[in-house]
């Protein structure tokens, strides 16, 4: 048995490893609540497991899991005024338990998201194995394939795309970048992290209860007709979105209140602006979709007729896409911010039109709530399409501000083509294609023609993998020296980046073509004339998957075994570079006093902090 550090200095207390205890308490709580429910509410035939009993059992299991990993000592006992016997671990074990240090929580989130990315990516590989042939040969039933699509999409959207940059890099970097010693609701973020494994495992095992066919959208009336696996979809998404809500709350309050003196709104780092805007989007739209899915769950369990074929299917679609389109911006807004965070550093040139880049983020946030119905043009009258088509095209203008700032900064610069620098350029290139095809899709004639084809699938993968995932990997390389104190191998970083760039563009540009050739999404079989293009996509997708895994291996290797990194390898001006690498527990020994913006380079750039000599980083 491993030991955690005890609260007193006099002796050590042997405790069960928190994750093991979490699993144990989750199992006990599940069996207990399931048994009680089965006893109180015997269904026809008296089965031990019913849809109602597993739902209630699941709620107990998640609570047991959270308490077991450390929320019992970290939150519940203090709530009742009891001092816990065991404190937080201070060695490597802290990464495997409830933690309140924002850097530990950030690394936990990054690990959870990274594992979920590999898992959901692996499921995508099975989909491409199936689609490498025009007939079914890998999956036995079409519902198996559709379940794979749904699990892949839901895990990717709710535990990777929404989480990696906000819960992961946001938790780690935002307090450092604003000169804070900690976050305001550190316990909330610590708790939120442990909802990610709970949600991912729930989604991953959902097909055990029966195949579900709705995809990541939970569409009705499909959901009401599906087997019981759809229940674990609703529950898994509830856990994952709750994680993002509480992290967003913590980050917004931290950004508003914990900025160091001189970190004014006009000087706030770009990445922090991105996290602020996306957190506000999370706080508005995630509770909305949570309640929608709770209603769908009740529809199923009670049962009710709110959204099924006897109810109002259209209401469910509206409620889903009210959240669903802002979700796309929840994913890519931090990526836009990363472009303009990293480019000035790599170019060593002042950020062009910084104010407009910030305004762009804010207007994307505001307009994202006005465009949802372009996902439903096939359900609408012609006259109703116009405003949504208009606003969807309009949103490309503030999006363009991010491009404008990036290109303006690159213009006539001596850009350093490091691995993060290269990946950011690739992200911009990819997102340009995703964005332009999005403008096509905003036009009803094109939309109605390519609706539900692989053209749409290619479009959003260009925005999400091409835009967000490439930026995420860029940011991992960029901040690796800060988080680990070590440096990656530049050759392997660039080689693998070029690898994934070629594989990605081969796979998804071909997917545009196969969509235009008439291939529907959501089908495991297709006419034989589409086979050659699909085979190309599958080969490129597998290559892409291998490339992502190799990137992960390289980053983990560099984290542990890479050469020692200099204190500020990129000559970045933001505050995280003014402390040790990795940073000490409270980030800064002395609070920085900021006196100038972070993106001014050149001979005439003023000092950024007044107390630079006191902030001299100490290598740890």
């Amino acid at each position, binding site marked *: 048995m491993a030991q955690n550090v005890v609260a007193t200095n006099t002796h050590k207390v042997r405790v069960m490893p928190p994750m093991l205890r979490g699993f144990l308490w989750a199992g006990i709580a599940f069996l207990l609540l399931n048994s009680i429910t089965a006893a109180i509410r015997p269904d026809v035939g008296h089965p031990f497991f019913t849809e109602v009993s597993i739902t209630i059992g699941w709620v107990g299991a998640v609570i047991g899991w959270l308490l077991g990993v450390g929320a019992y000592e970290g939150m519940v006992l203090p709530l009742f005024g009891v001092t816990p016997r065991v404190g937080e671990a201070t060695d490597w074990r802290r990464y495997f338990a409830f933690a309140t240090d924002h850097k530990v929580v950030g690394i936990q989130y990054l690990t959870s998201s990274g594992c979920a990315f590999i898992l959901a990516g692996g499921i995508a590989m099975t989909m491409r194995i199936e689609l490498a042939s025009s007939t079914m040969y890998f999956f036995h039933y079409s519902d198996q394939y559709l379940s794979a699509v749904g699990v892949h999409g839901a895990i990717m959207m709710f535990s990777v795309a929404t989480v990696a940059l906000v819960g992961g890099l946001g938790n780690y970097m935002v307090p450092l970048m604003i000169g804070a010693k900690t976050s*305001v609701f550190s316990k909330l973020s610590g708790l939120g992290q442990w909802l990610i494994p709970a949600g991912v495992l729930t989604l991953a095992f959902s097909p055990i209860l029966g195949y579900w066919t709705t995809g990541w959208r939970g569409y009705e009336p499909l959901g009401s007709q599906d087997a019981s696996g759809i229940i674990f979809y609703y529950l898994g998404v509830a856990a994952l979105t709750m994680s993002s809500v509480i992290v967003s709350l913590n980050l917004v309050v931290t950004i508003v*209140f914990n900025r160091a003196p001189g970190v004014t709104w006009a000087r706030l780092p770009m990445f922090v602006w991105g996290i602020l805007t996306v957190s506000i989007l999370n706080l508005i739209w995630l*509770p*909305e979709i949570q309640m929608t899915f*709770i209603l769908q769950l*009740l529809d199923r369990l*009670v049962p*009710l007729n709110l959204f099924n074929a006897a109810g109002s299917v259209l*209401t469910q679609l509206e409620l889903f896409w009210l959240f669903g389109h802002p979700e796309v911006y929840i994913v890519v807004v931090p990526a836009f911010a990363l472009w303009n965070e990293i480019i000035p550093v790599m170019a060593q040139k002042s950020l062009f039109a910084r104010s407009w880049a910030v305004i762009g983020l804010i207007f994307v946030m505001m307009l994202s709530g006005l465009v949802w119905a372009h996902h439903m043009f096939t359900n609408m009258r012609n006259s109703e399409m116009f405003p949504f088509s208009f606003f969807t095209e309009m949103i490309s203008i503030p999006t363009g501000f991010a491009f404008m700032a990036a290109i303006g900064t690159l213009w006539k610069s001596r850009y350093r083509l490091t691995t993060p620098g290269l990946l950011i350029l690739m992200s911009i290139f990819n997102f340009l294609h995703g964005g332009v095809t999005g403008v096509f899709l905003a036009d009803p004639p094109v939309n109605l023609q390519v609706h539900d084809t692989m053209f749409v699938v290619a479009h959003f993968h260009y925005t999400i993998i091409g835009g967000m995932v490439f930026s995420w990997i860029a940011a991992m390389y960029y901040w690796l020296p800060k988080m680990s104190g070590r440096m990656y191998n530049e050759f392997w970083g660039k080689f693998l980046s070029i690898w994934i760039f070629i594989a990605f563009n081969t796979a998804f540009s071909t997917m545009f073509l196969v969509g235009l050739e008439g291939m529907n999404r959501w089908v495991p079989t297709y006419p034989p004339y589409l086979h050659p293009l699909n085979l190309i996509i599958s080969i490129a997708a597998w290559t892409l998957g291998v490339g992502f895994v190799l990137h992960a291996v390289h980053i983990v290797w560099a984290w542990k075994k890479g050469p020692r990194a200099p204190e500020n390898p990129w000559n970045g001006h933001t505050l995280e570079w003014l402390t040790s690498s990795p940073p000490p527990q409270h980030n800064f020994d002395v609070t920085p006093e900021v006196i100038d913006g972070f993106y001014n380079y050149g001979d005439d750039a003023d000092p950024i902090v007044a107390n630079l000599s006191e902030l001299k980083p100490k290598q740890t």
Partner: protein
Amino acid sequence: MQEEAALDAERHSAALQWGFRLFLMVQVIPFVVLFTVRYELDGYYVAPTVNQWLGGASALLMLISIWYAVSSLSAIRQDDLIAMQHRMKSAIGVGLLYMALIIYEWSQRSIPVGTRYGENFYTTLGVSAFYTVAGLFVLVAIAVRSGRAHFNRHNYWDAQAATWYWVFQGLTAVVAYIYFYWI
């Protein structure tokens, strides 16, 4: 140095309060969804079998409970821990009575579940009741803690947050009553 620490504490306190208000604002959104779904599916229809007097009694109990909670906060602001504890316990007691009335009303099954009105009635008021149960748990926790944590007029944030939450859930319960029993 002490001045800096005091400023930090003051800022931290302001952050907690602002953050909690933001949390409560965010919690309005699920109720907006519920009210919208009811309007989309059922307009402003009110079932003739709904017991407006019983619902009114529940709403009144909730308002009384809110009053007790708010007055307990006033007591601790005046450094009166004993009064705070008594009023907090009264808020809990009246809150439990509210829950008992809700359970009694539902057990009467005067509103059939299988109707448009009924399914919205039970889902919205059910969600509201869930918030009430969560609020009761927090109030009980604070009541227990008040004996150990030495609340005083300088240190009562936990009690304040619990009270704010209780007021929020109480007001949503009262709005739900008006929306489902009268409009």
